[in-house]
């Protein structure tokens, strides 16, 4: 107990030097706890764990992390690392030893590449790789070269000895924007790439050869949400295990519910109150953005709860329809969230048939229209052939019967052809009697 108290005092001093009050720190711990899907009552535990780790790791045991930037806009780095004032997130950053990050590292060029190499050699099986951006496989891997090396080679090498890989942002998950049609550079996500390499016999996970690829945690969205990344890091570093993942290797607790179901505009949806045009009175009233093509109803993420920019707001709250950036799916070849959700401001995605791009609604209405025209034309045909008043006369016998008298379906001679007026009358009478019997 005394040890923890000492630690807390030491830690408070550290916070103070960074201009963070203990109160704000605990608030932050609460947010991390919620992101992890834990009860907020556990926030003190998380705070304690962070305190212990920051102090403990300060003595040279920080978890080594490599932040690789591939084909990216650096938005994820911005999202994760932007600090207006010394932020509590920077304290958490002291949980890790960020040995390589193109944007954040002070070093550059040869010395930075050396730091990466040393980490990979000295901390094999221990380091965590955070990957931002899509991997480019095009032009034999020359579509993306870093420090005169093909990015595909770097990923293969770095993954072989990684403790875990965190794919930060949708591009690293399924190729994202870069992988959208026509994708000339061969952009792909990390997980599909490593699986393909493994299948082709070009990759072995040296830390544990019994598994195909290293543990992967996909944290999509564009950019990746800093709250998500911090929560995942806290999970891996403090709890010491991977968070619970779904079939896309996304943390279930963050990507388990539809945005729509937690949306603050949901009431307007149920009431049928929609924004139909930007700049309209309905928009001013904060109505539902469904009619503008909001992808919240088919995108799973906890944006409405965790929110963005230090929990200030998020897309839909700020008035922009969701574009479904969290729907990145690493399990489908040639699949990416941009193609899946474009056009962003339309209710359904485009269908591509060869070079023609159209909406399912247009296609379906077209086919329906053709069917309607065909039926109307057929109706005129029916009218012209005099079939509209009771149909055409029945055939006296099946064509098959005429051709195959020995195997005929009808077992009586063709009645209509044979019957005389008298016979018909007799049959009618017989029928009437039967009818009477029924009644």
């Amino acid at each position, binding site marked *: 107990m005394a040890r923890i108290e000492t630690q807390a005092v030491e830690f408070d001093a550290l916070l103070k030097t960074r201009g963070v009050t203990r109160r704000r720190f605990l608030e932050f711990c609460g947010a991390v706890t919620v992101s992890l899907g834990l009860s907020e009552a556990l926030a003190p535990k998380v705070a304690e764990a962070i305190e212990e780790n920051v102090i403990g790791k300060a003595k040279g045991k920080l978890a080594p992390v490599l932040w690789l930037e591939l084909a990216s806009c650096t938005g994820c780095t911005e999202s994760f690392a932007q600090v207006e004032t010394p932020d509590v997130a920077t304290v958490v950053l002291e949980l890790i030893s960020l040995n390589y990050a193109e944007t954040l590292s002070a070093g550059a060029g040869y010395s930075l590449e050396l730091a990466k190499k040393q980490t990979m050699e000295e901390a094999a099986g221990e380091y965590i790789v955070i990957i931002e951006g899509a991997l480019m496989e095009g032009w034999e891997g020359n579509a993306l070269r870093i420090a005169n090396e093909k990015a595909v080679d770097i990923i293969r090498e770095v993954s072989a000895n990684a403790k875990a890989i965190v794919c930060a942002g949708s591009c690293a998950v399924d190729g994202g924007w870069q992988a959208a049609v026509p994708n000339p550079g061969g952009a792909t996500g990390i997980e599909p790439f490593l699986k393909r390499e493994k299948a082709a016999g070009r990759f072995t996970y040296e830390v544990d050869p019994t598994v195909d690829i290293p543990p992967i945690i996909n944290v999509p969205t564009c950019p990746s949400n800093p709250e998500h990344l911090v929560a995942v890091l806290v999970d891996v570093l403090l709890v010491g295990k991977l968070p619970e993942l779904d*079939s896309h290797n996304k943390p279930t607790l963050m990507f*388990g519910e*539809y945005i729509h179901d937690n949306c603050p505009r949901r009431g307007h*949806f*149920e*009431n*049928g*109150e*929609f924004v139909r045009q930007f700049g309209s009175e309905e928009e001013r009233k904060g109505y539902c953005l469904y*009619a503008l093509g909001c*992808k919240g109803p*088919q995108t799973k993420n906890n944006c409405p709860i965790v929110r963005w920019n230090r929990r200030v707001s998020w897309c839909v709250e700020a008035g922009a329809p969701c574009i*479904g950036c969290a*729907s990145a799916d690493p399990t489908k070849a040639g699949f990416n969230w941009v193609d*899946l*959700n474009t056009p962003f401001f339309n209710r*359904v*995605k485009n269908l591509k048939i060869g070079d023609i791009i159209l909406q*399912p*609604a247009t296609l*379906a209405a077209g*086919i*329906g229209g053709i*069917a*309607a025209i065909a*039926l109307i034309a*057929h*109706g005129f045909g*029916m009218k012209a*052939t005099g*079939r*509209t*008043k*009771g*149909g*055409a*006369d*029945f*055939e*006296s*016998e*099946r*064509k*098959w019967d005429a051709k195959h008298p020995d195997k005929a*379906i*009808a*077992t*009586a001679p063709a*009645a*209509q052809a044979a*019957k005389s007026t008298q*016979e*018909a009358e007799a*049959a*009618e009478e*017989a*029928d*009437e009697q*039967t*009818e009477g019997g029924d009644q």
Partner: protein
Amino acid sequence: MAHLAHYRQAHPLPFVITHWINLICILVLIFTGFYIHFPYFSGFMGVARGLHLGLGYLLVINCAVRIILSLFIKSAPTAGSREVDRDIKSFLPQKDNRHQFGAWIKYYLFIKKEHPLGAKYGVPQKLAYAAIPFLILLVAFTGLCLYAPTSVVGPFAAFNGLVGGVMVTRIIHYCIMWVFIIFIALHAYLATIEGLAPAKMMFGWKEHGGLVYSPETHTIIGEDDLDGKDH
């Protein structure tokens, strides 16, 4: 008089009722489905979703009831006859239909002048009707894939994963609706273009005289004008 007689035995009352339920369910489901697809006017989403879910379940239940009843209730397997057999036989291959598929297609395309002989349902008609329960199952399944509380349940979640997400499932669900729309257009057209007698039977259970067909000899054997009532 070229039509076969329409007797109540061909469409027993329970099936007239299930047909009414099908009609109402499908029309309301299509309307509310279009609204959920895109809210063309305001103030209806909660009601639209409630109706869509409720009538969706009713359609599936009605379909199941219709199939189960067809095993027990007897109906006339051919038009123009009061002789009855288990109703399910009308949806299975019948001797009266044998070798007549080509004849029906030729008749519809005006290549063949005379009306083909057959059972209660012609060959293309029977194929279409037999496909409807499968279509209902498929549309209900994709519907439950989209409905948030069930979308996370095993088979529904697996289907969403297989096709590439809820957005793709939505498009499949939407396309099946269009198959229903085209079926209804075709069905309503073919059932009424040669006269309203079949529709009067199906909706109002009203009999209509005409030619008499024998299920034993598989051919037309006479004419019945229902006591001289209207032709």
